[in-house]
Structures are given as C-alpha cells and as structure tokens.
C-alpha cells in the first residue's frame, strides 16, 4: 500500500511540474480577470509574444511583489491604484517609457514611468427595486429614506474608496457622521459592498466602483449607476514596467498594445473609461464627470489619521 501511494505521489508530482515554463512577458494585474485575459490573447495574436499573468486584488499583488523582491519575476504591473505608481517610482523600481500610443492620453493620466490603462470612477450604485427614491447626491444617502440601507466600501481595503473619503471629508467628517447616524455600514471591499444591494438587503452603495455595477446592469441586474453632480473621484489604473525585467522590449510592446486602438477597445468593452481621449465607450467618460480635486501627496500623507477618524465615526 505504501509503495502504491508513493508511486502515485511521484506520478502526480511529475504531472504537476510539467508545462510551467515562464512566458515571454509576465504580467501581475489587479482585476478584472476577463480584461487581462482578452488583452493577453489579443497581444499574442498580434505579436506572437506569449503572456502569462497573475491576477488578484491590488493588495495581494503587492504582497507577492514584496515577498519576491529579492528575486522578482514580474515584467509589467497593472495596479488599480495610482498610489502604487507614485510609490514604486520613488523606490526607483520603474523603467521610464513613453509609448507612441499614449499621445492622446491626458497628462494627468501619465507620468515618465506609468500610464493609465483605463479609468474607473466611483458612483452611487442604487437598486431601483429597493422601494427608495432615486438618490442624486452623496448627501441624499444620509436621509431617513435610506436608514439602514446604505453600504460603504472600506477605505482601508480600497484605495479609491479612501480617496473618495478624503475628498468628501476635506471640510470635516460631517457627511460621514450623518451617514453613520443613519445606520450606514462599512462593508468590506468593493464587491462585498455591492452584493447586498443587488439582493435588496441594502438600497445603495456609497462609492461603488462604477464598471462592476455597469457590468451587472448589462447582465440584467436591477442596479443603476449615478454620478453625483457635486463631483466624484476617479481611480486610474497605472501600467508600469519594472526595472528588473529581462524582457523590457516585449514589456514595452505590451504597453503599446494596451494603448492601441484594439487594446483600448477591450478596456472600453469592460465598461472602464479608456485612457485615450480619442477612444469612445458606451458609458459616461471623464469629460462627462465632475472630478473632485484630490491632492494625492497630501491625502496619502495623512492616510492613517483619515482612516482613524473614519473608523471612529463608524465604530459602534
């Protein structure tokens, strides 16, 4: 019996090790999975260069890079938080690259070492079947109509939610205090906050990532994405080439492909806003939204204080 088990173990091990050679370009990316799948397939079809990717949340991708730092394998990194690009540039981990295709990407969506792949915005995701009036403004969700019916993504777990909290608390935590009094709750990361709204346990998400809700709506979910006129924040998704990459030419080709007409069409197909202003999408674009000013250096400088104040407001 021992011998059979041993043989089976060896056979299984042999099976598992087969076929795991590293690809030409290794991409680490924050979600969505279907976006990187389509980009990788399109790029390989066009150039013949093979792409392998690792997809997780921004946090898990960063944890992996941090643990791998003594012997890194990633060539291209796509984060869901612009903060990553700033931080990695400060550490000197990035290769400067200006893609020819980035000409029509607005200046605030590119630096020497990073360029946006696409952009998400935060919005109110409201379930029309919830029996509540349609909210138009952030402050509406603090009204009695929405008592115990509002979810907020956790700013400690979502970079974009943090920027929204910073932007809306520039003059104090007043709005969030009235939300807390109205029994709004902080409910995990983005997807976790949206689910109860779809089923109807809650009526709205305060600061939902727009493309996930738009995709849900396209599938027939009862959900509406509302951009308050007073303004919202955007979450550009930076693409970076790491300086330890041994495949920098292929990595640059991949960045070019992301910013090509075909690549940006794939981005638009996921209901994200394309980074290039000359590519359209079937959804509100950056020019259609009022963007709240966020001084990244300043707000991230006092991140700990903001999160502390926020969690105090929502502590029971």
């Amino acid at each position, binding site marked *: *019996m*021992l011998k059979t*088990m*041993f043989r*089976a*173990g060896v056979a*299984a*091990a042999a099976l*598992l*090790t087969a076929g*795991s050679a*590293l690809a030409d370009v290794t991409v*680490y990316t924050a*979600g*969505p*999975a279907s976006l990187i*799948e389509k980009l990788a397939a399109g790029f390989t079809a066009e150039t013949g260069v093979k792409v*392998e990717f*690792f997809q*997780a*949340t*921004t*946090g*898990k991708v*960063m*944890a*992996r890079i941090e*643990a*791998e*730092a*003594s*012997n890194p*394998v990633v060539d291209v990194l796509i984060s869901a*938080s612009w*903060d*990553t690009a700033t931080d990695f540039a400060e550490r000197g981990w990035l290769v400067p690259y200006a893609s020819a295709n980035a000409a029509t990407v607005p200046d605030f969506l590119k630096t020497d070492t990073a360029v946006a792949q696409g952009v998400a915005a935060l919005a109110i995701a409201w*379930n029309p079947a919830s029996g509540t009036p349609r909210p138009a403004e952030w402050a509406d969700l603090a009204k009695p109509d929405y008592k115990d019916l509002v979810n907020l993504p956790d700013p400690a*777990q979502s970079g974009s939610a943090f920027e929204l909290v910073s932007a809306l608390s520039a003059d104090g935590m007043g709005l969030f205090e009235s939300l807390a009094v109205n029994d709004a*709750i*902080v*409910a*995990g990361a983005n*997807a*976790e906050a949206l*689910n109860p709204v*779809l*089923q*109807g*346990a*809650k009526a709205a998400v305060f600061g939902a990532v727009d493309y*996930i*809700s738009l*995709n*849900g709506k396209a*599938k*027939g*979910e*009862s*959900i509406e994405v509302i951009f308050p006129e007073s303004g919202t924040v955007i979450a550009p998704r930076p693409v970076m080439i790491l300086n330890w990459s041994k495949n920098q030419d292929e990595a640059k080709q991949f960045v070019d492909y992301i910013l090509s007409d075909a690549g940006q069409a794939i981005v638009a197909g996921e209901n994200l806003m394309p980074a290039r202003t000359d590519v359209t999408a079937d959804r509100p674009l950056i020019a259609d939204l009022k963007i709240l000013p966020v001084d990244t250096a300043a707000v991230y400088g006092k991140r700990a204080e903001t999160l502390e104040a926020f969690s105090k407001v929502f502590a*029971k």
Partner: protein
Amino acid sequence: MARAHEAVSPSVVIAAAGLVVVVAVPLLFILLQAVFPHLGRGSLAAPFYALAGALGDPKLIGMTGNTLLLGVLVVALSALIAVPLAVARALFRVPGAVIWDVLFLIPFMIPPYIAVLGWIMTLQPRGYLEQVAGFNLAPFLFSISGIVFVMTLNTFPVVYFAVSRTVETVGSRYADVGRVFGASPARAFWRITLPLSTPGLAASLLLVFAMAIEEYGTPAALGGRAGFDVLVTAIDLRVSDWPIDLPGAAILSLVLVILSFAAFLMQRWILTRRSYEATTGKPQDSAKRELGVWKIPVLALFAAVAVAATGLPLLAILATAMSRTISGGLAWSNLGLSNFEAILGDSTGALKALGTSLSLGVAAALVTGILGALSAYAVVKSKVRGRGVLDVLTILPNALPGIVVAVGLILAWNQPWLPVTPYNTSLILLLAYCCILLPQPVRYATAAFHQIGDNLEAAARVFGATPLVAFRRILLPLIAPSLLAAMLLVFAVATRELVASVVVAPVGVSTISTYIWRQFEQGSVGLGMAMAFLTILITTALPLIVLSLMGRRGNLL
C-alpha cells in the same frame, strides 16, 4: 527496551526529512521575516525593528481575546453537536447510518467562504429566507453568535468522524466488561467508553480550535459589522494594505501559533496521563445495539443537523447558481442553467481550474497521508530522541494563516541562489497545501497509534519482520481507517483552499478557489456559485467512489 539500541528506523528518517521540507523551511522564513523586516529584499538590516510596532498595537489584546473566545466557543458548540451524534452512530444501529455520514461529510466539502456567502444571502434582509418565509435573521447572523454558528456547521464533522470512529474502535466490549461487574449502561459509558475515546475527541477538538482561530472568510465577512476583530483579519489587512507590512503579519501569526501551541500542550497533557490502548489484536465484537424508543428523537436530531449544516447551505448555493440575476430573486422566470452551461462549456477556463485543483488535492492527500503516518509513528511508537520536536512541527502549521504560509513559501523558495525551485510551478501550491493540512493526518494517525498496543509490533518483529515491514503490514492497516478519513479531509480542503492559493499560485494557473474568487470580484456571483456547487458534488462523490471501490465503506464512514 531493546529498541533504544537499534539504528533509527528508516520511517523516522523519512518523516523527519519530510517535515523539514514541508513545515520547517517555510516556518523558519516566517520567523526570519518577523525578525528581519527587509528579508524580502534579501537584507538582514534592522533586526527586531518591527516587533515593537506590531506587538505595541493597542488593539492586539482585544483581538487576541476575541480570537481565543471564538476558538473556545466553536470548540464547545462543535463538541455539543457532534459528540452525541457520533456516540449514537458508533454504538447504536442508526437507520440510514451511511446516508447521515455522507450528509455530514458535505459541510466539510463546502468552502467556508462559500458557506458564509450562502448564509448571508439566505438570512440578510430580502434574502432567500425572507423571500420564502417573510422574515430575516440578519441581527443574529452579523454577531458573534452568527460567526460561531456558521463556523461550527463547517467544523463539527471533524469531531463527528473522529469520535464515532474512536468510540467504534473502543467498542462496546470494554463497556460490556463493566456491565458484567455491575455498572449501569450510563455508568459504563461515562466511566469506560468515553474516557477510552479521549484521544479521538481531544485530537479533533484541537483541530477545530486551530481551524477556528485560523479561519479568515467567516470573521471577515460577518465580524466587521459586529465590530468583532480577530487576529487573522488584522493579519490579512497588513498583507493587503499598501504599504505591505510582511513583518507585522509574521509577528501576529506567531501570536496565533503560540495560542495553538498552548492548546496542543493541553491536549498532549491529557493524552500522556494514561494509556488508551484498546486495539490489542484480540477479536472485537462490533455488534451494535438497537435504539429502541430513542429511535425517533435520535433520528430527529440527525435530521435537524443535516438540514442546517448541509441542506440550507446547498440550497442557497444552488439557488444563487441558478439565478440569472441576483436582483431577480427566487422567481421561476429568473431561474436557468446558463451559469452551469458557461462552466461546462469551458468558456471561462473553469474546467482547467477544476483539473488543477483535483490533481493537487489528490497529491496533497497522498503526501500528507504518508508523511502523517510516518510522523505519528515516530512520535508515538518510536523511542527516538527529538521526537518531541517532530510532534511540535506537525502541529505548528495548523494555526498559521494560509496567507502567511504563502509568504513564507515565497521567501524560502524564491531565493536567487537556488539552482532549482518549485516556485512558479504548481508544486509550490502542493507544498502550501501539505504544510497547511499536514496536522490533520498526523492528529488522526496519532490518535489511532495511541490505541494500538505495543505488543502487536513487537510480535511482528519477533517473527522476523524488519521495522518497515512491521510498519507496513501491521501498523498501517490498523490505522488505515483513521488515516484514510484524514486524507479524505485533506483532499477536500486542498481542492478548495483559497487564502494561500490567491497569493502563491504560479502565473497563469487557476485553482477552483481562485476561479470562484475572481468571479465574485467581478460581480459574477452566480457563476462562482455554480462552480462551487459542481466542486462540492465532485469532492464529495470522488472519495465515496474510491472508498466503495476499495470495499471498506462500511467501516470507514
């Protein structure tokens, strides 16, 4: 004893080598990471720098207290539910016994993150319960009681299977002796059968405790709202929140390890106080008693637990998987099989993920089974020096959060000077699963070895068997039922492990759990649930088929 003068048995050497690779290496790197904050970048600068920050966290004491409370409550409730069921199952002829066993196996096959999502979608306002019955239980679910309830339903099978098997091995034979000498049936049970079953009970409760303090999904999903923070959620936040704090996570994990180690010492103290040998080689009478008037109440208890632990979660999962949209709710017009079609049509890479996870599950079960049996033998039956260290190595990973094991494995196996490395191959997932799950077979096999008299092996040796032959022909068959059950649990957990897989999976490789998790992240809850449902079917059916082919279903389950 003569054995002390012999050369060290090869089985002990294999066990030690295996434990070093599977447990000691990643553990060492977690320790190093706790001490040297910049280990990831290959630097040993600023030792102990992070210690004060992590241990000086004002919330630490509260979180540690919550973690302990959660562990103790889950252990208590698991024992309360599982022990009566297990005793009834072991000593009496319960109608449909095998079916109950299968139904109690399923909760263990339901990934905890799926189970908790199922419960949320059932019990929250406008959830399935409210759609069907008009009321919801949200205040109960999002509280400590709710967390303990959901976690217990996931863990009680561990106790049920361990205790029912040990009690069966102890048999009614010893109790009969007590009866002959005038003890009442109740007295014989409390004074003889139950004390002799202590190894199985203690081992399984220890496993439940470690699982409860290590589990991430349920406290994260339910505890946040109740203001109930535990160590694991704090560890995960340190690993997912930029700037990543690996040393802080490593230090907090060591606190968890200490908790689990304390529980382990307590279990060992209980086991070494006396002898529990019940398997002596003499023929056993395994005839079971009739339940008599207790038939209906006992059946009702079995049914109630099966409905809560298996029926409701499976229905919630199936309902979500068959819904076209979540907002459509439970309406005929909203039901369809499109999610299952998407998976079976493999338009989303689901079948490949299934294949990867199933082969990893089988491999992990085999490796941990062999290593677990050898380690338990080395600890219980050999007199080799340092066997205490081996015993400690087999329990430590139990309390290590999956994400920290993953980080330890990356730090260990991604060193630039290694000529070959399992990192970035599927083998790294196998190593992760083996490390996390090794305690299961070891605990089960240890409990079984404690019940086997030393005379059996000695008899084999007298008749000329080598140590390996005696191990293979005498001891292994005797512990096989316990060991196979543990391997089955390893298979189930390894095929659905999420937390380590998300971080350590090689580029381009999906497992079942990372596939499901990605669907959730993208808002495709139905697709994720469909995959979960198919996985539960497969991971339940596969072991059952294997066992019945081996013709030992009766005494195994």
